[in-house]
């Protein structure tokens, strides 16, 4: 039974001619304790998908299941439980904390509001504990500070501590380390990994950085999104080493590597067009076809290809290329 499942979920924005489908018939199932990465470029709908899972946005089509129950059919009590169980960490450390509240206020507010503690003293104690869990030690150094007095990485840790106040079981990390210094990112990710192990939290890690996705979700799975649809999905190790969908292959080939020799040896994939289609005017059939080097007229521009299972593991939405392995490195 999946922890959270999206069945044919769509989300539309705007009305009439301005209507776009940020998320288009996406089906995703995430198991308890799993680490899933949702990767894609900007505008692919990954953030929207994450917010729909967290209950912050409503799906305009399809249904969302929490522990196998549709969320629009949960009782008030169960719905509340679901909302507490799924928390979100935002991307921008400068916008995710209320600038006029101290760290102490930020953490103790949900504790007191939901009566997780008895009184302000216990709230202070629990807040200190949470700060220590996210490696902000000694907690007392941070309690009376305002967000603008902390660094980006420290603010993200406060965001995580705040999310932990309601004992979440599922955390959506929406580009949570993208705006943090490179040298700090790894320690944030390691801290999140520790949380997963200690508190058995399921993770949805949304990112555009494939290398970080590979690191964080090595034991988990990746779903690749393009213009609102999932185009490939599978165990991280398989998707990274043996991508099947042309878009995934193009992405992996395009990423520059922090290693001059390695980056020189990467295969260069030339796309047919550099234009990114607007969501207002999606190409018919497979939305990637105007750029795809393997485009077949009459096949790719007719009907959107379904996600189909692949022997190597996972699913791919490309009937033409899904069973063909391609190496991402030129021979040395």
């Amino acid at each position, binding site marked *: 039974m999946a922890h959270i499942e999206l069945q044919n979920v769509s989300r539309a924005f705007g009305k009439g001619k301005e209507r776009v489908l940020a998320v288009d018939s996406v089906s995703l199932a995430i198991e308890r304790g799993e680490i899933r990465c949702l990767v894609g470029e900007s505008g692919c709908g990954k953030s929207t998908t994450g917010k729909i899972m967290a209950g*912050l946005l409503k799906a305009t089509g399809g249904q969302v299941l929490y522990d196998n129950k549709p969320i629009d059919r949960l009782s008030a009590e169960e719905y509340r439980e679901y*909302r507490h169980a799924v928390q979100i960490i935002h*991307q*921008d450390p400068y*916008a995710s904390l*209320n600038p*006029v509240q101290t760290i102490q206020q930020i953490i103790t507010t949900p504790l007191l509001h939901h009566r997780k503690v008895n009184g302000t003293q216990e709230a202070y104690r629990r807040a200190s504990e949470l700060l220590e869990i996210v490696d902000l030690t000694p907690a007392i150094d941070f309690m009376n500070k305002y967000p603008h007095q902390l660094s980006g990485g420290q603010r993200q840790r406060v965001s995580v501590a705040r*999310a932990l106040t*309601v004992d979440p079981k599922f955390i959506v990390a929406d580009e949570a380390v993208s705006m943090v210094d490179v040298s700090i990112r790894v320690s944030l990710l390691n801290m999140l990994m520790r949380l997963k192990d200690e508190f058995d939290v399921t993770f949805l890690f949304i990112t555009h950085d494939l290398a970080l996705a590979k690191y964080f979700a090595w034991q988990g799975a990746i779903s690749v999104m393009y213009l609102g649809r999932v185009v490939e999905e599978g165990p991280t190790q398989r998707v990274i080493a043996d991508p099947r969908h042309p878009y995934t292959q193009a992405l992996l080939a395009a990423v520059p590597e922090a290693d001059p020799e390695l980056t020189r040896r990467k295969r260069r994939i030339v796309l047919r067009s550099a234009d990114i289609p607007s969501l207002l005017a999606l190409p018919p059939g497979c939305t990637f076809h105007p750029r795809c080097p393997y485009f077949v007229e009459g096949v790719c521009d007719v009907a959107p290809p379904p996600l189909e299972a692949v022997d190597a593991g996972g699913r791919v939405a490309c009937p033409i290329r899904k069973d063909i392995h391609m190496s991402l490195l030129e021979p040395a």
Partner: protein
Amino acid sequence: MNMFTQAFSSLGVTLRIMSYNKVGFAGFLMVIFIVLVSFVGPYFVPLDSETKVDQIFQPPSAQYWFGTDHQGRDIFSHIVNGGKDVIIVAVIAATLSTLIAVTFGTFSGFAGGRTDAVIMAITDIMLTIPQLPLLLILASLLQFENIASLGLLLGFLNWPSLLRAVRSQALSLKERDFVEAARALDLGAPHIIFREIVPNMMTYIIISFALAMTGAIYAQVALVLFGLVPFSGSNWGVMLSLAWVRGAIFFKDSIWYIMMPIAAIVLLQLSVVTTTRSLELVFNPRLRSGE
């Protein structure tokens, strides 16, 4: 006793923060000074209501610090006694209009949908009605028992433009990540409005309060000039209108009569506006670089 000392210490902290901005703190002290002079001063400087025909329009001297008016009365005493009414009306008007604007503006922006549409429609109608003529008509129709009712009237007329501005601030704050985080944490709409959104608008609110005060002061003066406010006694607005009517601007020596109330009004407004710079520091911790 504990609450008392706590209140005092937070007052002390607030004052210390306000002192980080020198100009603002000077303005704050000036406001305190003017308030003291206007409310406590009259006990020490009684109003000179004695007509002295031989002392008409005297320039400032050792005896009459600000000179005398068209009836030979001491202007200084009039200034000291004339601030109370003006300040009370301004404060009442500003408080009322700010309260209406903030409550309904935030609520309208946050709730959206039909509630928002209705509140905005009312606001837009109010905005299109010309303010001064409306004020004059209402003033002439209503009876003013006391200055508080004048304050209430001015407050009821002043909120529309402020409400629009507050609403648009609320709309943009609503989209901020920390508000979404509060939603994810299920902290509830009242908390989000009053503890997340409004505190981030405080700078705007206090500046609007200050400007509402200055607007109320001008409105009062306009009403008095039009003779619609049956105030006996003396206040700065009355002094201004009398000075105007009595032709004080045409005499070299009587210029003091018209200048002093103007100076007092300007000084009050200036100090209120500069105080906002210190108040900003109290409400927005990011601006405090002195700690």
